[in-house]
């Protein structure tokens, strides 16, 4: 166990290094119009994903519970799920490669923050067990990864004509970027909602309340609503393109606040462990 944890942090840092190289290669390849560099970057990212998986596995084994308790674990898992998502997308569908320019640095940032917060291990508190908690965090992981991707498409859409983005090879046309960001916003909405509701079920069984307007819950609800408003807006007002992308930026900022900042507020039940 101890050994696993000692190794784990080193493996994590190796993954971080791989992501840094990947992000650098992809950005450099894009700006310098060197497709071979970009390709190499993707490969390194894929390898990094494998290393990262090993790190999380070691962590899981060493800490005795899934990587979802401390901020370190949560950020690292977020980074992994996002990277896994973008790799799956990249390998399956052409045209999603340009996304890497945005997502690789984002993943690098997430994992960097994780490592920065430090790998202190906490025992799983009593109330933090059971299937509802696992579903709760798992759905939020996916929701957040989808939010990053949808933001990525949105940002690509907003900056399509900007110097950097216009050089990225294989950036799809504006309509497709818009559609993809819509698709992933929908996914965010669905998974965020389920994450929130499973959280409520967990809270009910643990604390005797399914909803208590604590800051984490409230911000989470507001975030979900903003994604809902985005979907309504698209459908009813035909809001597309720039405006839609800007609304997504708002939604994403709220998501970040909900996931990473609200738990610092002392009134939150969650705050005890997610620091």
């Amino acid at each position, binding site marked *: 166990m101890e050994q696993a944890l000692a190794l784990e942090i080193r493996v994590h840092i190796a993954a971080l290094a791989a992501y840094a190289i990947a992000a650098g290669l992809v950005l450099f390849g894009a700006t310098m119009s060197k497709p071979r560099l970009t390709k190499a970057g993707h490969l390194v990212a894929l390898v990094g994903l494998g290393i990262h998986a090993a790190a999380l596995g070691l962590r899981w084994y060493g800490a005795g519970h899934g990587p979802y308790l401390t901020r370190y674990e949560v950020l690292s898992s977020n980074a992994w799920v996002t990277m896994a998502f973008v790799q799956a997308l990249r390998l399956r569908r052409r045209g999603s490669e340009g996304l890497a320019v945005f997502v690789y640095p984002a993943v690098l940032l997430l994992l960097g923050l994780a490592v920065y917060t430090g790998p202190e291990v906490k025992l799983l508190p009593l109330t933090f067990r059971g299937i509802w908690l696992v579903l709760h965090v798992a759905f939020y992981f996916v929701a957040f990864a989808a939010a990053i991707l949808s933001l990525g498409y949105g940002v690509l859409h907003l900056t399509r004509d900007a110097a950097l983005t216009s050089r990225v090879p294989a950036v799809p046309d504006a309509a497709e970027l818009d*559609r993809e960001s819509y698709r992933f916003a929908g996914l965010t*909405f669905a998974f965020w909602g389920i994450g929130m509701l499973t959280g409520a079920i967990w809270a009910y069984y643990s604390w005797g309340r*399914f909803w208590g307007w604590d800051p984490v819950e409230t911000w989470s609800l507001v975030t979900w609503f903003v994604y809902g408003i985005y979907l309504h807006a698209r459908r009813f007002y035909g809001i597309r393109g720039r405006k839609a992308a800007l609304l997504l930026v708002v939604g994403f900022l709220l998501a970040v606040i909900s996931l990473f900042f609200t738990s610092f507020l002392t*009134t939150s039940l969650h705050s005890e462990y997610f620091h």
Partner: protein
Amino acid sequence: MAFVAVFGALGAWIPQSALGNADALATWQRNNPLMARVADALGLYAIFSSWWFLTALTIFAVALAIATVRLMRASWRTWRSPVRVTRTLLPGASAGPILDRAKRAGFRVRSEAPGRHVLGRHGSGVWASSVLHVGMLLSLVWAALLLGTTTGAIADLSLGEVREPGAEYYAVEDPSDPPELGMPWRLDDIEAVTWPSGVLKELSARLSFFDGNAWTERTTSVNHPLRIKGHTIYTQPGEFGDAVLLRVIDAGDVEHLLRMDFYFIEDGQPTYTDGSYVIGGASIEGRWDPNGVRDARPLGLRPAGDGTAEPVMLAPGDMAEVAGLTVEFIDTTRWARFIVQRSPSVTPLFIGFAIIGLGSLMLYAWIPRELVLEEADDGVRYSWHVARMSRAYMSERDAILGIASGEREGL
């Protein structure tokens, strides 16, 4: 057209109500941090009190209800809609290979007449937004009901202690209407399992309930509360521990029986009473050291508030003078704290949640597609319908029809 108009008009005010609500929530949360803290600390909920919040919520619920009804009507119409006419001709094509490709892509035959085939995939997806909004409506209504009617109290019991109906609680949310099971219940046992480090791993309590004839045993544990007769009983980690039973004779020679409670301490260090105990005009506090860290005798007593006083140490059976009281340490036992809540069943709420989950997954995983084929002398006529995100499915259509991507249907 009417369909579009109706929903366009609806949409003109709907997102606003949703927006207003989102803002309202955030504002509420900013304006009432104290409330949130109180509600949190007690694990109780005295929220939902401001009239404007309730009003906003009610308007929202009504809007949602109206929308849900309309959505369901619309879904029903789409579901039952007569088969569309085919428009586009694929010259020289034959239906057979197209049907094969469609079936391989997961399409199923909806109806078939000589020379005419209707195939569909994820047809039930037309219900997605209906399902989602029905779930939200159900959850919202039931959540309001629960939040409005749930009332709670806190009961402390020691091993073997029976709680009679109407007995006092340690704390009550609404003193005029405390929850009450209406039958005696008793704490039989507390099971606490710890990790090697001493940290709590599992906690459960065995309770017995007397229905007038016999005692029935039930268990409540952390994350698995016990539901009985419209009430839910929770244990909380850390809300239990050792207790000592004392016989106290005060300065006026009056005898009192006292139970002094200590909280479970994870590292096995001494633990102190939470506040003081007042008996016969004197007040004392205690230290509990079951592992003998400070003293071989586990119980220390001293006058309350006097941090400098050396505690008087007692082992079971010992007697001593503290703060003018004669105290005899009779026995040790254990105690646990329970949250007792009276509330309607939570099941409809969770069903509502499940419906929301299903609906929102349906929205993005089950996009209904329909392909109508009609054999003609000069080829095959077709039409293709996609309910949402239609552009994303053009390549699927083209693959099934065997036409080069990019060709437009001409619609």
